């Protein structure tokens, strides 16, 4: 089921005030109607072309037949509808052939597509990501050769980073790029886990490939970025003969099966031609500059998949009669819908708090990306970039971890039916299980947060973030209906500040390993704190709406208040208990010896 439109409208208009964002020059051509129009089209296509085939795309996973990838035929219609409507280029600047929609709006639309059928959504999302990378760092000649066709959906895109021997550790990649005399390169190597790596959906596929130019320095400092088309493309942009990229096999995934995942051999059977993007040896730096967007988008899709499961289990709970109330066990009484049972209410509220909170956090980051893009003040741009850098590992990881937990709860609500393939909640769980793994695993995000982002600029971004949390707590502390939550969040904030100080001091003393051993716990804790803060802000808006216009949508806003109550009462205390563990600087994980397992 799709994310409810009311939810998206609430987050964009009431929480993130997209209207204010439209006052800038970049978005001068947009107004509330164009944003609504974008969402209307997204919902129409998601509902008719994506949602009905999510299950089929899972059951009939991609096959490798006669050297080609075979997808279910509905994939083509869906990606055509998506690209013909203009979604691939929606956020691109008009000068680059796009529609210049605010990032936050296209991301919200992306969440809707992901909630409908994340596998189909993968193709357009990857193509937009690859085009964005090329657009930012490629030469005008490369851009004009590839990007228009990508935005039209004639060429699809991929990201080729991982190799069989180099997964999370990109320093170890070994794909080689041999310079040819005319400035082109000949590539040779194997790339693993390439989503959308081969298929017949468009006339060509444009791979963004990390490789080493022969003689480059070892490690991350010797990695360059190349654009490598499946079929060679002439100056006029027409696709010609094959470029010797062999489809070596498909990976058979647990979920997210609608997006084919491949093993590719570059340079098998002949010369594979590639073109350097930007300068040599800067490939990883280029990739990382796009990482905030990509990782925030992963968190968004995690929230979308969690939300879809929440909708299914809510529907089931309202319509499944089973058992009698705890207060009246009379078997002559008709059974009640299971939503009336307190533990089912717990499972539903947890899902609501995780998924709506995760979606709000993701869209908040998308808004910061917009602000970073439109500001002309270099100081402000730098501060926003730092803030996003800090928030990115959390925006990627927290929804990936806890909206997956929501999918687990959705299965629980349906009981045995939830565990069967006749209902979609088990598929949604499997689909979402990818998110804590790809685009930097959960553990890597913890290291990124505690090992780098917390320290950036002397901890300025974290200081600024926690100041905002404290200010919001102080502001709300005078509102009787919310002050109890403000107090809880303020207490958790002080706990996080205290342990952050300790861990930073450890690192300063050269005890980095000790400081980082519990980085994942730190990541989860800061994530919980920020989601509680997000709920407090959502609750404040909801309370105001209830007071300003009673009777218009009371149930919606009451639900927000209750979810805030749930999160701050039942979830937030984890921050306090985690902070106690973190403060112990327990050495268990670094002391373990292999034989003790």
């Amino acid at each position, binding site marked *: 089921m799709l994310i409810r439109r009311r939810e998206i409208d609430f987050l964009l208009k009431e929480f993130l005030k997209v209207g204010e964002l439209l006052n800038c020059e970049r978005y001068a051509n947009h*107004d509330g109607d164009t944003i609504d129009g974008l969402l209307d089209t997204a919902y129409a296509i998601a509902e008719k072309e994506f949602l009905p085939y999510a299950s089929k795309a899972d059951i009939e996973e991609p096959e490798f037949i006669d050297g080609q990838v075979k997808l279910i035929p509905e994939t083509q219609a869906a990606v055509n509808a998506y690209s013909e409507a203009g979604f691939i280029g929606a956020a691109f600047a008009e000068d680059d052939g796009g529609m210049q929609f605010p990032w936050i709006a296209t991301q919200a639309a992306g969440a809707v597509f992901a909630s409908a059928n994340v596998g189909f959504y993968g193709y357009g999302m990857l193509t937009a990501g690859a085009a964005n990378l090329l657009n930012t760092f490629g030469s005008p000649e490369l851009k004009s050769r590839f990007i228009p066709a990508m935005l039209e959906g004639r060429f699809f895109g991929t990201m080729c980073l991982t190799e069989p021997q180099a997964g999370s550790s990109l320093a170890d990649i070994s794909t080689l790029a041999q310079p040819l005399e005319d400035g082109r390169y000949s590539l040779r190597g194997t790339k693993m886990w390439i989503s959308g790596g081969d298929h017949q959906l468009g006339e060509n596929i444009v791979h963004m490939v990390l490789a080493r130019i022969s003689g480059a320095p070892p490690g991350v400092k010797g990695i360059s970025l190349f654009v490598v088309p499946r079929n060679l493309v002439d100056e006029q942009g027409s696709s010609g003969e094959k470029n010797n990229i062999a489809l070596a096999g498909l990976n058979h995934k647990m979920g997210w099966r609608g997006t084919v995942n491949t093993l590719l051999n570059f340079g098998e059977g002949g010369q594979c031609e590639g073109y350097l993007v930007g300068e040599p040896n800067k490939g990883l730096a280029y990739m990382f500059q796009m990482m905030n967007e990509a990782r925030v988008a992963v968190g968004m899709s995690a929230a979308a998949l969690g939300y879809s499961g929440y909708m299914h289990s809510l529907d089931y709970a309202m319509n499944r009669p089973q058992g009698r109330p705890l207060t009246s066990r009379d078997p002559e009484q008709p059974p009640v819908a299971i939503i009336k049972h307190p533990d089912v209410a717990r499972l539903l509220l947890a899902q609501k708090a995780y998924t709506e909170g995760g979606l709000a956090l993701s869209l908040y980051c998308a808004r910061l990306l917009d602000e970073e893009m439109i500001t002309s003040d270099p100081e402000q741009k730098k501060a926003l970039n730092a803030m996003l850098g800090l928030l990115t590992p959390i925006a990627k990881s927290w929804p990936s971890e806890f909206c997956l937990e929501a999918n687990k709860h959705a299965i629980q609500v349906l009981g045995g039916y939830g565990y069967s393939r006749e209902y979609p909640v088990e598929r949604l769980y499997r689909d979402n299980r990818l998110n804590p793994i790809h685009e930097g695993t959960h553990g890597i995000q913890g290291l990124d947060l505690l090992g780098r982002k917390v320290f950036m600029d002397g901890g300025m971004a974290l200081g600024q973030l926690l100041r905002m949390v404290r200010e919001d707590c102080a502001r709300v502390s005078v509102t009787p209906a919310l002050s109890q939550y403000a107090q809880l969040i303020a207490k958790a904030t002080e706990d996080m500040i205290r342990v952050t100080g300790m861990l930073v001091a450890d690192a300063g003393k050269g005890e980095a390993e000790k400081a980082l051993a519990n980085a994942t716990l730190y990541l989860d804790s800061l994530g919980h704190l920020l989601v509680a803060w997000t709920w407090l802000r959502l609750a404040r808006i909801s309370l105001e709406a209830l007071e300003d216009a009673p009777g218009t949508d009371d149930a919606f806003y009451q639900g927000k208040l209750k979810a805030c109550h749930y999160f701050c009462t039942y979830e937030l205390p984890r921050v306090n208990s985690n902070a106690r563990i973190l403060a112990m600087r327990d050495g268990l994980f670094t002391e373990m010896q292999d034989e003790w397992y």
Partner: protein
Amino acid sequence: MKKIMVGLKRVVDYNVRIRVKPDGSGVITDGVKMSINPFDEIALEEALRIKERGEAEEVIAVSIGPADAQQQLRTGLAMGADRAILVQTDKLVEPLDAARTLLKLIEKESPELVIVGKQAIDDDNGQTGAMLAALWDRPQGTCVSEVTFADGKATVTREVDSGLETIEVDLPAVLTADLRLNEPRYVKLPDIMKAKRKPLETVSLDDLGIALDPQLEIVKTDPPAQRQKGVMVEDVDGLISALKDKGLL
């Protein structure tokens, strides 16, 4: 044909769970997602296809409703209508008044064809198209699932209770669109931007010389009754007697 006029009504989106106002005076529309009536969207799609086949030159989308109905007209323009007219009023407009208002627009624009949805999903009256044809004193083809044109006539397939009925109507005429007439296109994002530059004229009922003349009184609005709980019967005899009790056998 030179012109086709299409009526687009702003209604609560079909995905929204309708809530009745506490005082029973109507349904809640504040803060509720509004859309083009789906049958009107089909009507517009058909007009656009007729134009794209080269059988018409201009498609005009018209609506009667509040200022916010501009949103639905903009959507119509983004789908491909050439221009739009909003007859702005915050009052409730009954089918007969809607037909009288549309007639004024017809007198102004002289279209050869008017297409509206066979009904609007808000009040399900299904009257405006037929009333308009009567007031205009022109032929009508209602509940249309297929239409072709030749020699100043339209050949119209209608969905009727007993199946399909094919009739021929002289133009100008009023058609009302049924569900199977077509599948409306998706609005493309670039066309949303282009629609902002297409003409959208706003007129008042006064401008058209229309004074609303309500014929209906809303006595009460109730949500649909909750579904009754089912009962298990012991055997076939039990089923038959249960059906008899309900007067179904």
